[in-house]
């Protein structure tokens, strides 16, 4: 029990250490924080580039079986590396679950806040700019 509390406290401390998130452009002009998403799929492409790392997932609709290729924006490679990522953390073919906020323009695009790798269950903070603190 004590370990669990400690683990939770460490988790919160890590989250705080990660803040402030790396910001490059207006989050709220492009994404809608009131439209959260959680999507799972297979990685098809990773753009490990500045100012934002973008990766793409083939997401299959459970009902219609239709496959849509989604793009997800994270922080810069530097911001991600400071949060424990490397350029090989996500590889083509990996199964992942992504949480974040949808793009305002309705396209299959979102800002990723956290990424969970299906193989390890590891939850990775995505150095997102979704932290509208002043």
């Amino acid at each position: 029990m004590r370990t669990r509390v400690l683990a939770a406290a460490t988790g919160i401390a890590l989250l705080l250490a990660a803040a402030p998130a790396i910001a490059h452009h207006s989050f709220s002009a492009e994404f809608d924080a009131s439209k959260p998403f959680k999507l799972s799929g297979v990685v098809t492409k990773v753009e490990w580039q500045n100012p934002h790392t973008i990766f793409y997932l083939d997401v299959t609709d459970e009902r219609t079986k239709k496959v849509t290729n989604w793009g997800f924006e994270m922080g810069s490679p530097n911001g991600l590396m400071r949060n424990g990522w490397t350029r090989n953390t996500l590889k083509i073919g990996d199964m992942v679950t992504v949480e974040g906020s949808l793009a305002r323009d309705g396209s299959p695009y979102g800002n990723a806040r956290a990424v969970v790798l299906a193989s390890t269950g590891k939850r990775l903070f995505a150095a997102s700019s979704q932290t509208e603190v002043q």
Partner: protein
Amino acid sequence: MRLMRIAIASSVIVIAALWTADAQGPATQRTAEPAPRFADGTPNLGRVPGEKGVWDVPYIQNMGLRIPGPDGKTAAERGPAPSESGGRGGGKAEPDVPFLPWARGIYDYNSKNNSKYDPEGFCLPPGGPRLMATPYPMEIIQQPEHKRIFMVFEGATHIWREIYMDGRPHPQGDSLNPTYLGHSVGHWDHDTLVVDVAGFNENTWLDYYGHPHTDLLHVVERFRRLNKGTLHYEALIDDPGAYSKPWTVAWNIPWSADGELTEYICQENNRYLQKLTDDFGQSVISGR
């Protein structure tokens, strides 16, 4: 509904936690060692030999909330502002910012469209106090033998600034070429590095929220290393083109003891710019 309540409660907790972290600076408590000094007693605003370290510049989005009041505290230090839950309030929510009418109009416009046209979104550098508010690491390198100080910024588009410590004045008239970062001359006032900056162009905003400025902007910055882990930053914003009187903003910048600068080339793959549309829905770059 229950979920929404939980979500709102969690957001409040996160915002409160972030606010606490920002206002008190966890690094401040960890590293209460005195500020390092050079042999002649001058404060060292950078690393000591044999150690790493960078200044972990905080994400200050709205300088209207960073104006110290009569008690010395800023609105951000007193607590989360009401506008954080209810969206942006524009100029009327910031009675302490002495806007001229046109500047207030521009600010309201930037507030309404969520900073859509923020020059930093174009990978252009911040100018003035926003250099100390764009959340990427920064180093201060003093070269007393050359009578100059460099500030090197990883983010804020990978730039540096040079502060002349040799007593020279700002160039006058047309010799003062307007630039993004302006012309910086500095001196020591006891333990405080005072930097006077003039000669800004008009291509930057003062902050992410979009407080505007003109090329009449004159900034007086004060850097004081309170202890090894904390740099106190203060900036007087004096711009008679946009504000009816000078106003001052202030915050602390924590030291990250194991940090180092790394490469950050913002222009590499800037999708934001590629997707940006104007108020009429037209692509901002396709017409070029």
